[in-house]
């Protein structure tokens, strides 16, 4: 009956951009947040009047309350928030670079907390709205390859679970999506052939968005990670899964 409004953080490329596109195609108005202005503008030009580009670096947490309020104002309300911003810089097997690690935590976790706290606080008061966080299967185990990326996604999932438990009685849904490998800028250097496309990941995410709970994007992953999560650590470290 009424037009729906979404806020997508991390909308300039990959999964977040596809989510924004698909939302608009099904009649939503979207505020698209990311750092790269040119990318956002190109996206906005695809959908005149339906996408509001918002240039913002999620590491600037102090600015978030004001940017959030402005977005709600400009959209004329808010029904859905999707946090898709994330980084996964390459990390060498003997690299323990705290500065780089904190960057990952800043974007993947602290930024998520800062944005989703705003959303949660609003939805807690209005008793209306949906929150989606893009986690990762990478958060299911601590792997030798990406210690802090894994940590950030595990912590994100725990934070989202807590939000879900807080907001359930207000009728607000909180959904954690755990994609496996997806072909995007983030994974370009890995040369993932045959992995899910960003648009397919977005499509599946939007189907699951309103359900609440934690979701993998395919039955295969659900099954595989059911097993992987249960492999004892001494064995897990010898495997390359």
């Amino acid at each position, binding site marked *: 009956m009424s037009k729906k409004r979404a806020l997508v953080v991390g909308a300039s490329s990959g999964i977040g951009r596809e989510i924004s596109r698909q939302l608009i195609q099904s009649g939503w108005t979207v505020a698209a947040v990311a750092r790269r202005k040119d990318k956002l503008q190109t996206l906005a030009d695809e959908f005149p009047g339906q996408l509001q580009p918002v240039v913002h670096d999620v590491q600037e947490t102090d600015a978030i*309350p004001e940017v959030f*309020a402005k977005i709600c104002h400009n959209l004329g309300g808010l029904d859905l928030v999707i946090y898709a911003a994330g980084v996964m810089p390459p990390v060498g097997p003997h690299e323990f670079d705290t500065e780089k690690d904190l960057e990952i935590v800043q974007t993947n976790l602290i930024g998520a907390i800062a944005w989703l706290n705003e959303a949660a606080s609003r939805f807690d*008061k209005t008793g209306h709205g949906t929150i989606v966080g893009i986690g990762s299967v990478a958060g299911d185990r601590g792997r030798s390859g990406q210690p802090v990326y894994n940590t950030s996604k595990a912590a994100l999932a725990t934070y989202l679970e807590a939000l879900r438990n807080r907001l359930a009685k207000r009728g607000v849904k909180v959904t954690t999506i755990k994609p496996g490998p997806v072909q995007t800028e983030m994974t370009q250097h890995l040369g993932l052939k045959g992995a899910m496309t960003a648009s397919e990941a977005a499509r599946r995410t939007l189907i699951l968005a309103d359900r609440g709970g934690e979701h993998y994007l395919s039955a295969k992953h659900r099954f595989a990670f059911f097993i992987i999560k249960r492999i004892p650590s001494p064995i897990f470290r010898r495997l390359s899964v």
Partner: protein
Amino acid sequence: MNRAIGDRVARLSGYGQRTFADGYIFRPGSVEEVINVFHEARRDGRNVTLRGAGRSYGDQAIYPEAYVLEIGRMNRILSWDAQSGIIDCEAGATIETLWRHTIEDGWWPPVVSGTMYPTLAGALAMNIHGKNNFRVGTLGEHVLDLEIVTPTGEKLTLLPTDPLFPAVISGFGMFGVIVRVKLQMKKLESGNLKVLAVSPANWDEQFELFEEHETEADYMVSWVDCFAKGTEAGRGQFHAAWYENGESIDRRSLWVSRQDLPDMIMGIFPKSLVWRVLKLLCNRTGMRLLNWAKDRAGRLLDNGKFHTQSLVAFSFLLDYVPNWRNAYLPDGFIQYQSFVPKEHAKRVFSEQIKLQQESKLESFLGVLKRHRPDSFLFSHAVDGYSLAMDFKVTKARWDELELLCHRMNDIVLAAGGRFYLAKDSTLRPEDFQQYLGDSTLKEFWRLKRLIDPENILMSSLTSRLPVLRTPLEHHHE
């Protein structure tokens, strides 16, 4: 943007719980704080929406992302003169505040709605009518003076002779915040009414009853069974009521304790639970049955009989069942009320009901009243009748329901009828334009430019009816 604003956010709707909007609630306690809300809104680039008790049915007191100024905290009685019956109060006082304060001195609000919870500000912004509309007009006709705060922060006291007076009253919160009202109350000898109940068998009998009593009854109202067809179409239960006076009246009937509605229905059933039972019946079959049962009961038990009823029980029947609107959840309901000149009313209302029955979207409740015209800017009344109906909304059939309303509008407009913004959810801009006429809209724009040049006061109603929203674009006229 200050951090605290997020704490004010709330999801608001009209009484029908169909349309919602999130806004930021401000509850000023004084004129200074009212002025300050406009100041903050201007600073933050926000619109302001005025809200009383939220008893309008649709989108009249909501607007997405607006600063919502709720008047309810300003509810003090400033002076009361039990000799003259003149009461001066802050405009957030409700109809309930009013009658509780004055009844024991023998006075009653001159005009009340079917619920006692509206604020005086909200009631005047819509210019409410009662079951005595045909005798005493609307609430606005009993106001001695009122005070508003304009969006530019000016305080104005308006007398009935002031050109702004008929626009502020009926102007659905578009011309400033009504903050104080002085009202002439109605003298009573008894807290009871003498009530006659008659069960008309069809439309002809309905209108005959109204005509028979319109010169002498103090109140008239009739319930209409919208499921009845053919020769029984228009059947229902008519009530006329008279103030009690004379030697034998019981002065104790003026006590508040004698007026209060009981907590139990039929002495045993807690009324706070009734809506849950109603929810089970809130479908076509259940409501067809309920309407039928009410008709039978009326015919068997009360037909043609007089009884005594307290003013509160007679006036605020709908307050008997708390939260009855929740029976219509999850998608809520809309009210539809049209006002039709007396010579066309019977035909128009019977056609409206036929249309509903054809599309199987019957109103679950129909209420017929008698009206007289008034000269307020957005007047809804005519020398004729109104039929108010409640339609259950379902997402699946909303488009059909909206279409039904539009078809009913067409018949009303062709008969020279009018609509009431407090109840509306489905008027099209062109319907609105047609019943009000261009001169009314021009006057609206002229005054709006004068009082609210920046167009700060808005509501979802005004964005649904863009003819109301565009005074600035009409500058060249």
